[in-house]
């Protein structure tokens, strides 16, 4: 099995991270934004796995699992809020959520 160089893995993670970030910046729909965040988190997770692989340690994979768990918790809360947001604002457009400013 050919070893994937660390640099390549990190590069991929970086690209993924950037895609997620870009999605966050350009999307207005709250669901897509949540998805973008997930991509960013997973990019970080990927980076951990790559790093762990480099040092032949399980720590990277453990971190990935922790990330998955916390992301799930986060998404659970976020989706609940999305529901409430939709009920109260009748939209999923985050730009509508600007009642507080200044």
């Amino acid at each position, binding site marked *: 099995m050919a070893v994937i160089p660390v640099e390549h893995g990190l590069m991929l993670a970086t690209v993924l991270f950037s895609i997620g970030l870009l999605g966050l910046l*350009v999307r*207005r729909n709250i669901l897509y934004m949540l998805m973008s965040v997930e991509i960013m988190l997973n990019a970080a997770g990927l980076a951990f796995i790559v790093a762990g692989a480099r040092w032949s340690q399980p720590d990277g994979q453990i971190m990935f699992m922790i990330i998955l768990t916390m992301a799930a918790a986060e998404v659970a809360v976020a989706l609940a809020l999305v529901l409430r947001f939709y009920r109260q604002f009748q939209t999923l457009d985050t*730009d509508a959520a600007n*009642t507080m*400013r200044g």
Partner: protein
Amino acid sequence: MNFVNSLLWTIPALPLAGFITLALFGDRIARRSVSRIAVGTVSLSALLALVFAFRFVTAPPEGQAFQQALWSWIHVGSFSVDAALRLDSLSMVMVLVVTVIGALIHLYSTEYMADDESYTRFFAYLNLFVAAMLTLVLADNLLFLFLGWEGVGLCSFLLIGFWYEDPKNGRAAAKAFLVTRIGDVFMLIGMLLLFWHFGTLHIQTLLGAVNTEGHSWHLTLAALLLLGGAIGKSGQVPLQVWLPDAMAGPTPVSALIHAATMVTAGVYLIARMNPIFIHAPGIQHLVAVIGAVTLLIAGLCALAQRDIKRVLAYSTVSQIGYMFLALGAGAWSAAMFHFFTHAIFKALLFMAAGAIIVALHHEQDMFKMGGLRRRMPLVFWTYLIGSLSLAALPLVTAGFYSKDKILFEVFTSEHGKLLWAVGVAGAFITALYTFRMNFLVFFGTQKSEIHKGTGLAMALPLMLLAAGATVVGFFELPAVFGHFTLFSSFIEHTLPGTHGDHASHSLELMLMAVSTAAVFAGIAVAYFIWGSAAKKSSDVTKRPLSRLLASGMGFDWLYERAIVSPYSAGARANAADAVNALYTALVSGIEAIAFSLARTQSGRLRWYMAAIAFGAVVGILLVVYA
């Protein structure tokens, strides 16, 4: 005997005590007691001064000066100044004039001011003035002298503005104070310079050091600065503008302060500090030039005045110009002699004028007077004696001897010819305006009613001074008339001697003849213009030249435009303080920034995220690449 010497301090202290008594308890003292206290203290001082003068001649003190240290005033490190008195022959002359003429004027005032409601206040100020003036002339160091110097300025301010209800008087008073203060500041700076250069303000030590050091630019600068103080106080060009306005005060004040004593403080200062001027020949020459210019300008201005007191005021300026001329020419004793005679005849003129003014119910316009010769004979004769002395009528008047001494010594000094010519021209003008005044006031037809006669308290000083205006001239006779030098040999204990003594008698006679001719010419011209009744009423003030002269050659106009108006208008315009704008701008700038920052708080999630991304990128760049 030492006991008498130790009484030196009482000469200024007596009038001061009078002032304090009147100031603190004035409203509980009867008018009679007020005048007793006021006149009494000054007379006592005069008496003491005479005693000292007598002792000075009979038993000359060590070092030709009485000295007395009073108390230690300011000692800080190397700076050390005591309150101490020193009475030498120069001071002696001043003290005598101040106390004796002061006493006479006090006496005169008891009648002149009799009806004034602020009688006590008047005498309090007058006493304070005498005390301050005596401090000025007796001080043995410059700072103590400055105390008296400012003190007399204060009294001058208070007395010019004595009738404070008329804002005009208040303005005149403030003007006098401010203009002289400009000079005072120069003098103050001069003192600072002298202190740091010589390490002392004690006059004798200082002058000793000056003589040792000789010529240096420090001395030139110091002389210039002291001259600044002197011209302010003595009303010389270009700071002469305050003196004519100072006539707003009661007439005795004009006589005492603005003719006889205070205004000559500048002369005293220069004479006192003579080594500095001697070692700064350029500045000494400047003194002479200022004197010459002043005497000419002031004399011309006097020609066009309508107010009798303003004529006398300009005449005072002009006569002090002679003294400056003399100082500048190195004729120290001549200057002091002219001061001496001038004090007498000018006080006389002012008091006589005061008598007229009172009699005419405070009418001062000469064109509304006339023909008073018969109705007020005493005043007429004394006034005439004073006028003749002022115009320097040969042989019989004091003014002749003093002025002639000045002109002679100016002529014989270096570069003195032109200055002498100016002096002679001045003599002509003096005679002209003096007799213009006499003809207008005493001759012709009477135009105003006389309300009040002249009482004893006013008449007595007039007569005494009239006598003086004739007699004192003989204290000092020129070489051609016997060379009697009582005054100059007395004063030359202190002041350097003159240089013109060995000039030929024929030159002296010739010069005398020229100036005599000028005087007579002046009187004659005055007679032709104002002597005949027909022309007397013609008012010349309408012509442009007359207007220029009447307004004092436009100095007031110039200062008003160039300094006073910009200053006060600027201050009023800037009352809200332009610096505030700086902070207002700062505040609005910050607020503008704050509001634009507040706009970044748009409430939009994507924008917030963008900011975070931006921050992260910047952070990464800073951390990784910086």
